């Protein structure tokens, strides 16, 4: 009997301890501790940032545009979190940020997040969309999740980007033990399971790695961009003509690439050829290796430009050249694109550095508004076109869900978080994204908001579950634990919108809480949470 009592007592004690530890602020995560500002103080880092800043300032000056002022650090931190982790900063993170010296806050934030596993996972998922698409692909020979987790490892370790891409184009072996091979096996012909769809791979290479849409010339010469001919596309596809799948996985066989002429119906064997800069392509070797050499050649500027444009889009929600994978090869390009591309090549295709450089630019740190108190200062279309203000873009579904889930917790939800939270997050996320609508592969094209999205935010399960009163719910905890009404409103704003309320807002919402206690107070806070989550500000990046 005493044995049973002891076990019972033990269980109770464990329960209390778990609860207590969840309420206690957690220790600073490893990556946030040892911050070394040296790389961001280095002359070559600062020089590139300065050059990029100048490249934007010149046209502003020419046109007499007054740019937005620098944004608040928290606003910048929110952008960075959304771009790298797909969610908003937690209260815990905001408090850490506020405790840092102002002079290096953003560098510290950026570096900490780049080393965070959440970032590599999220970036991997976003890049994977352009590498392998979103379709689950041929069932037995393709493992999308395996591919994405491998990609995440590569990004986490900051493997040079040219090497990463080489390993995709020239991958061999089994899709299970050599995850990069899924880049090839996703394009296995659906009816044979052996050969690959060369056109699919050529299309991915041209868009994702070169930032050109050769694939539009697949069926006919390009209707709008006449430098791309059908022969360019076919020549690129032919590099994959020998790729095949076998029991030992992806390898190069003996087959050739044939296309049927649409008019004469004659079959024609196509030799591999590159669409531009043929002198950079080695003459000998296996075709996919030759292609990988050519794509990643340091003089092949299309390669570095494509990645800079994509990273810029990931950070800003909008690329420097639109659409993201259609960068002209015969027209002048934005100087910032060239400057960053050169830095990317010179510094060994260092992806972390590139993202950090972008975050450090003046443009990235501009406000998305102007000071309303300055008469005559208004934002025009030119401000947006010339990046004299931060672009406003709609958040992606998983960013919205990431934000809702994070806002319901005061601590950072990540891989250290309790397993139940993570499971809930996964299940909730999937269901919400189905209802909210996923942008799919074409994820950087701009879409307007939809009515079902508003309905699911206003009346859906996720928002209800994440705001209604509950012991572990952020809204309830704020309502009950904040020392006074002002602090409660301030905290709710920080947690949901990553900013402090304006004086008007503070006054308005304190009025909603005044004099309320217990459940009434919890419910009032639930209403405030609902309101903040349904605002334009929450659903858009700004």
């Amino acid at each position, binding site marked *: 009997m005493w044995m049973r009592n002891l076990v019972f007592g033990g269980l109770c004690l464990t329960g209390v301890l778990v609860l207590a530890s969840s309420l206690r602020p957690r220790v600073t995560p490893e990556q946030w501790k040892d911050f070394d500002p040296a790389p961001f103080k280095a002359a070559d880092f600062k020089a590139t940032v300065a050059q990029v800043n100048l490249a934007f300032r010149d046209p502003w000056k020419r046109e007499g545009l007054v740019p937005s002022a620098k944004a608040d650090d928290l606003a910048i931190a929110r952008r960075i979190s959304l771009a790298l982790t797909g969610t908003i900063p937690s209260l815990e993170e905001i408090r850490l940020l506020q405790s840092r010296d102002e002079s290096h806050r953003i560098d510290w934030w950026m570096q900490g997040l780049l080393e965070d596993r959440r970032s590599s996972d999220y970036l991997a998922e976003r890049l994977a969309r352009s590498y392998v698409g979103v379709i689950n692909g041929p069932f037995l020979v393709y493992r999308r999740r395996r591919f994405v987790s491998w990609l995440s490892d590569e990004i986490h370790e900051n493997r040079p980007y040219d090497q990463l891409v080489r390993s995709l184009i020239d991958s061999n072996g089994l899709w299970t033990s050599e995850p990069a091979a899924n880049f090839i096996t996703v394009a296995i012909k659906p009816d044979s399971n052996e050969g690959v769809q060369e056109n699919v791979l050529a299309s991915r290479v041209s868009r994702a790695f070169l930032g050109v849409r050769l694939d539009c010339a697949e069926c006919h010469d390009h209707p709008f961009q006449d430098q791309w001919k059908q022969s360019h596309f076919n020549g690129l596809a032919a590099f994959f003509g020998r790729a095949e799948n076998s029991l030992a996985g992806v390898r190069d066989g003996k087959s050739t690439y044939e296309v049927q002429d649409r008019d004469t119906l004659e079959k024609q064997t196509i030799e591999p050829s590159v669409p531009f800069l043929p002198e950079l392509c080695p003459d000998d070797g296996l075709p996919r290796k030759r292609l990988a050499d050519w794509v990643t050649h340091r003089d092949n500027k299309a390669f570095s430009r494509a990645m800079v444009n994509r990273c810029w889009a990931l950070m800003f929600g909008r690329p420097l050249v639109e659409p993201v994978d259609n960068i002209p090869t015969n027209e002048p390009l934005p100087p910032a694109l060239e400057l960053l591309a050169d830095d990317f090549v010179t510094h060994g295709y260092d992806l972390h550095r590139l993202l950090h450089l972008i975050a450090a630019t003046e443009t990235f740190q501009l406000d998305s508004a102007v000071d309303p108190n300055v008469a005559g200062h208004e934002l025009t279309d030119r401000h947006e076109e010339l990046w004299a203000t931060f672009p406003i873009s709609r958040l992606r579904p998983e960013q919205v869900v990431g934000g809702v889930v994070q806002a319901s917790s005061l601590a950072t939800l990540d891989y250290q978080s309790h397993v139940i939270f993570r499971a809930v997050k996964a299940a909730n996320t999937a269901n919400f994204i189905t209802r909210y609508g996923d942008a799919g592969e074409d994820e950087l094209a701009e879409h*307007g908001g939809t*009515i*079902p999205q508003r309905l699911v935010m206003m009346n859906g399960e996720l928002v209800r579950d994440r705001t209604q009163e509950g012991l572990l719910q952020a809204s309830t905890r704020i309502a009950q634990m904040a020392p006074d009404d002002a602090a409660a409103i301030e905290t709710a704003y920080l947690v949901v919108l990553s900013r402090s309320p304006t004086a008007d807002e503070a006054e308005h919402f304190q009025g909603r809480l005044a004099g309320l206690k217990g459940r009434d107070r919890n419910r009032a806070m639930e209403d405030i949470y609902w309101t903040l989550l349904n605002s334009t500000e929450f659903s858009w990046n700004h």
Partner: protein
Amino acid sequence: MEPLNQQTARGEDLFGRGWNRRTWLKTASLAGAGWLSPVASMLARAEEERSGGEPAQSVILLWMGGGNSQLETFDPHPGKSISGETKAINTNVAGVQFADGLPLLAEQMDSLAIVRNVVTKEGDHERGTYLVKTGYSPLPVMIHPTIGAILCHELPVGGAEIPRHVCIMPNQWPGRGGFLGDQYDAFKMGDPSGKLPDVTSRVPDDRMQRRLEDLNAVESAFARGRVARVKATLHQETVASARKMMSSEQLAAFEVDQESAELRERYGDSAFGRGCLVARRLIEKGVRCVEVNLNGWDTHTGNHEGCKTQNKQLDPAFASLIADLKERGLMEKTLVVCAGEFGRTPNINPLGGRDHWPNGFSVVLAGGGIRGGQVLGETDPEGSRVSHEQGHQIFDIHATILKAVGLDPTTENIAPGPRPLKLSEGSPIAELLG
């Protein structure tokens, strides 16, 4: 609405690189708000009058998720080894037989057209679904819109206050707008016996009112210094449209309980039966496309048992839908299509199942000017595949559907690229429209 939308899209595009973020935003949001715009419905009516004839107004797609066995439904081969002992029954059209699981539907054969030799190259669920629903094979270049999205994009808005594209009990791949924009995605709902998701406020009216009032405080703070930019997001308009839908009387169309018990019984006591009944109620309100899913056809094991269960739901629902549409005089206005992503192998595997078979399967069409009582094409009684040259292609079926609703399949939209893309690359099948 649509003429406006297209003009913007094309005007910007043909002149090179004008296809920028703002254009997208404007077009996309305009189209999104167009659900309820009175100007849009005016334009819409003008459009309808101009087109003269009486094309179908709506499409009901009965989606056989997983790929239904043609042999146990619309294309039996009784007495042959591939039938696996499945019996056939006569229909009300001489010489046309169905598998014995569809006795009620057999009585409606005179209204149906069966295409028995549809062929595709897609033997994977996701790819096959994509192809059959969009009329195009999946490409990395773009996401094609499904038939329901095309209809909503091309046809006038009319008086609908509720979503014009609805998917009942979706599997993983419901209809979507693709490059036409997310606002053409299907509105997704479950078994109509349950509550319609997300259209009912979670809190009483007074609290909802207070929440919305409070929203103004946050919105005006955010708009400071960026009024025009915040307006351009159309966020608040979309919230208002969503509110309008929440209070629309047309929401009653989603409620199956408003039909008589007798009629509900005729459709069958199944989610699919209720889905078909709600589909009829929705098209009466001007909804353009309702997709009703009957999943569970992926019979790799125990095919015959599986099909028996499926047919028990399909038969009364499909048959009553046809009868009901006829009784209400809606048959000419409504095109009903019954299809899955592919058929099943003629050979039965060692587990008594049939596997994926895109090499000759059945698609059924009815109403909307389709000539009923006919069968097009045939499959081999011994089970060999239909050659690609001889079979009917999915894109021709798409072109037929488009023609039936009064659209020209060769109409082009600007797809990403940008490049012009036809609504369908096929040609209408003349015999069906005869």
